[in-house]
């Protein structure tokens, strides 16, 4: 299942690994994405750390680690094709995967209903 942060990131948990990206609402607000700065694989992150940046023509927006853990994979496709974020934010344009120690932080994130409320 998919959960969300107040910073408009989605988080999917599967077998101890979370896949993180920005929501469709977020990419609409951002406009055309021209660059994504991803963290290094192997990096240990704490919830709330600023670990990535997504840039539109006009501005840069920070992406925060939605949970603590280790970056185990980043989406190389975004390096050559940042526009993918606008095309398929919640599918092919995931940003990075974090291996988490326990699921408590994930459970604490808001669910789909709560996120829908946030963006209306």
């Amino acid at each position, binding site marked *: 299942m998919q959960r969300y942060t107040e*910073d*408009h*990131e989605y988080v999917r948990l599967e077998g101890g690994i979370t896949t993180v990206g*920005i929501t469709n*609402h*977020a990419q609409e*607000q*951002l*406009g*055309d994405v*021209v*660059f994504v*700065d991803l963290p290094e694989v192997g990096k240990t992150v704490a919830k709330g750390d600023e670990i990535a*940046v*997504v*840039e*539109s*023509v*006009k*501005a*840069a*927006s*920070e*992406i*925060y680690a939605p949970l603590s853990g280790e970056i185990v994979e980043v989406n190389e496709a975004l*390096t050559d094709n*940042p526009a993918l974020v606008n095309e398929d934010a919640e599918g092919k344009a995931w940003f990075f995967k974090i291996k988490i120690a326990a699921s408590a932080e994930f459970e604490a994130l808001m669910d789909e209903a709560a996120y829908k409320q946030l963006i209306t």
Partner: protein
Amino acid sequence: MTAGRENPNREQRSDAEAEFERTPLYDLHVALGAKMVAFAGYAMPVSYPLGVMQEHLHARNKAGLFDVSHMGQAFLVGPDHETSSTALEALVPGSIVGLGPGRIRYTLLLNQDGGIVDDLMVTRSSSSDDDGRLYLVVNASRKDVDYALLAESLPSDVVLQQVSDRALMALQGPRADAIMRQHCPKAGGLGFMAATSAEFDGIDCHVSRSGYTGEDGFELSIPSKHAERVARTLLDHDDVEAIGLGARDSLRLEAGFCLYGHDLDETTSPIEAALGWTIAKRRRTEGGFPGAERILRELSDGPARVRVGIAPEGRAPAREGTEIVDADGRAIGVVTSGGFGPSVGGPVAMGYVDTVLSEVGTEVGLMVRGKQLPGRVAKLPFVPHRYRR
């Protein structure tokens, strides 16, 4: 991510926007689905549903319509051209006395330290009946400062008249000429940096062949009450799209044009700003403009720092405020405008660097998020100008 930082969601807009001024095209922007932002005290469209990238490309490929009514329009009115232009020459380094009827000049209002107060366009009336009238267009953010400076400097026989009942819009791009001719035939006859009063579909207007994109195009001053009609008429053309301030900024940056408050401020001299060409030949010997001593000295000796283009090597933009360093990591300058250039297909920037390191091709480092990224001093403009000469 901080999604809300850039633009307020359209539906949430209410009290915040009530404080802001509206141009005569405000309702149209909202009707077209624009994302509105606050700019220089005005509620302005930063982009429309097309988006910054596509709006930018459209303006270079076809024709873009921009609302620039927030800018300051004013007249200096004196008994004759000699009087009005001499009065303005006390504040700018350009030749205004030598400006021909219906001709436009880009020039700079200066302060006593030789710094730039604002950059502006000055047009001499094309009509001999009106020959003591100069038409000025100044930056929205500097209107108050400029008008105060003019008012305190003008002699008693030259009056500053602020224009508050006219909209200003720009139609820019390779299709602008063919489209404008259908509504304002006189506009088609204008060469670059020329202007005339005319009629657009029977509506009195003032049209100039000028702009801020580097493309061929026009700027149109129209009575506010007719502005929406004129805008809708132009937008009815298949080749015309509404363009917001986001694309206006990326277009001017690719064209190498300065934005006051970013690339120019009260500390920068025209020479540092690489605008030495605005110092008219006659005035290099005559002087008679504020800060002439510093400016003429920099003209002969060279300034310590100078505005240049900066091309980041990779894909990461280097934005305003980015520190520029040399090969040893020593600070040598700062980025004053930076972002992504849709026509270039990569990041573009302008900034100031130590003059000794300002040669095109010089390798520099750009401190982006604590990392030193490679870049080069680049030739301006990034995209060639396509004026109709």
